[in-house]
């Protein structure tokens, strides 16, 4: 089968798209958990639905609409944090659920367009087209290139904002770029995973990789690999058991996480016993 013919197959297209997403999500997801921004990722994902609503309303490109809306929500978060009367957690809770609810309300009011709400919420990786794949890979490459460019200052700012600042690393600038990258990734890959579950593939593979890594870069690579494995596992499961693809991929990621957890516990048990018998 030639590459072109292979991409004719919906399953292969899904696999290629999913792996593309996982490879970008891995390194980005590491920063999300290092910076304790899991809830932020969720909020941006939820605001994507509002972005879809506005894109349909204004008849503009959906990806552009989602990206712009994510940026607006991220800026709203920064402003509300500045005002400093509510905790970040609470602000995120307000923004996240408001955006999601508002998105659903607006979409259901737009009776003149037929919108598959479920596809947006849960994703529909099995319907990705070649054009979708091109967008995921081109956009993903740009996101990874930008992440590599800000890697050092972002890592320094993640360890300590104040230290990064006194050492001339411009942490607020790189934080802004990082937020834009998250918004971009969600806009590009929303179709693969759906907005409800998209952050799972940012967080679970990174959390899985943590146990086996001793440097940030190593963890970024392993997260990408674990994510790709989860996509493969989930898609095969989805095909085999005829389950929805997005949730199946997340289930795959969870399975890998649990297995790695049990394995690493067993390994440390054995190590302790070995030391015991020597001592």
């Amino acid at each position: 089968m030639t590459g072109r013919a292979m991409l004719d197959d919906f399953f292969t297209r899904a696999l290629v798209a999913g792996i593309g997403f996982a490879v970008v999500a891995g390194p980005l997801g590491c920063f999300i958990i290092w910076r304790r921004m899991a809830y932020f990722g969720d909020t941006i994902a939820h605001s994507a639905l509002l972005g879809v609503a506005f894109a349909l309303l204004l008849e503009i490109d959906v990806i552009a609409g989602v990206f712009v809306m994510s940026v607006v929500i991220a800026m709203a978060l920064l402003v509300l944090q500045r005002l400093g009367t509510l905790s970040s957690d609470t602000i995120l809770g307000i923004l996240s659920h408001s955006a999601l609810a508002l998105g659903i309300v607006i979409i259901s009011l737009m009776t003149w367009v037929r919108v598959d709400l479920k596809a947006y919420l849960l994703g529909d990786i099995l319907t990705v087209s070649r054009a979708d794949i091109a967008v995921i890979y081109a956009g993903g490459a740009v996101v990874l290139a930008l992440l590599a460019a800000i890697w050092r200052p972002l890592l320094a700012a993640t360890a300590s904002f104040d230290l990064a600042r006194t050492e001339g690393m411009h942490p607020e600038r790189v934080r802004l770029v990082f937020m834009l990258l998250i918004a971009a990734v969600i806009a590009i890959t929303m179709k693969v995973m759906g907005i409800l579950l998209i952050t799972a593939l940012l967080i679970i593979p990174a959390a899985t990789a943590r146990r086996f890594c001793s440097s940030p870069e190593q963890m970024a690579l392993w997260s990408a690999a674990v994510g790709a494995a989860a996509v493969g596992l989930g898609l095969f499961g989805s095909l085999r058991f005829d389950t929805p693809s997005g949730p199946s991929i997340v289930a795959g990621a969870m399975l890998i996480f649990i297995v790695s957890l049990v394995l690493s516990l067993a390994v440390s048990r054995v190590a302790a016993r070995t030391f015991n018998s020597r001592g």
Partner: protein
Amino acid sequence: MEQPVTAVTADAAAEPEGARALAHARHIGVFRGGRWLVRHVDITVRRGEIVTVIGPNGSGKSTSAKALLGLIDVDEGAATIAKGVRVGYVPQSISIDWTLPLTVARLLTLTARHSKAEIAATLAQVGLPDMADAPVQTLSGGEFQRALLARAIIRKPDLLVLDEPVQGVDFTGQIALYKLIRDIRDRLNCGVLLISHDLHIVMAETDTVVCLNGHVCCSGTPKLVAEDPEYRRLFGPAASEALAVYRHDHDHTHAHDGSVVALQGGAHHDHDGAGDA
């Protein structure tokens, strides 16, 4: 430089002094949550000088240091760091998430590259030999503090800002680290802004003491500050004791006279003055 005689002149006249300084906080105030955390604070750090800030908990020491470094905005006055000054900073506390895999060596090279040999040498200086590959999350409190100090000094800074750098460090370690700070000052000829609770050390090793309690209570040489009634009121008996040590350290001709007793009596006393004890 000629200045017109206006209200600005007072500030402008202070400029040359401020300009020579590595860091200069002029009458800074920080207003948060409906109150002034600190106000009317002046701090100047010059090359080769150790300036120590003392004060009770919550008196605004960390706030002042952060304002000086530009980490928080001031609502009054101005804080400046001279152009091109390389800063080494040890914050009072930082928390690195457990999920971030970072070795000590990597912690030292977060913002700039350093050779393996340089890292090893610096870690040895702060008493952490062979710890380069240890994950930072496994360090004890005192060890982590030492690693942060190593981070600050490996940069060969022009200005060291140390916010309680020896907290959690064992007693002998504290003495060694203070000595190290002084050595580094001598070697790099850098300025040091030190926040410390250890009055003994402050009195013995410092060029200028700034005693803070929301505002500057008093500042000047250790001797001047130690004799200030406000300082004594703030630190109570500990203050007198520290002054006694200071005198002991500095008085080479007659160390064991009645100076301690005189001090506890609250009398002002010149430690260099002979025969007035």
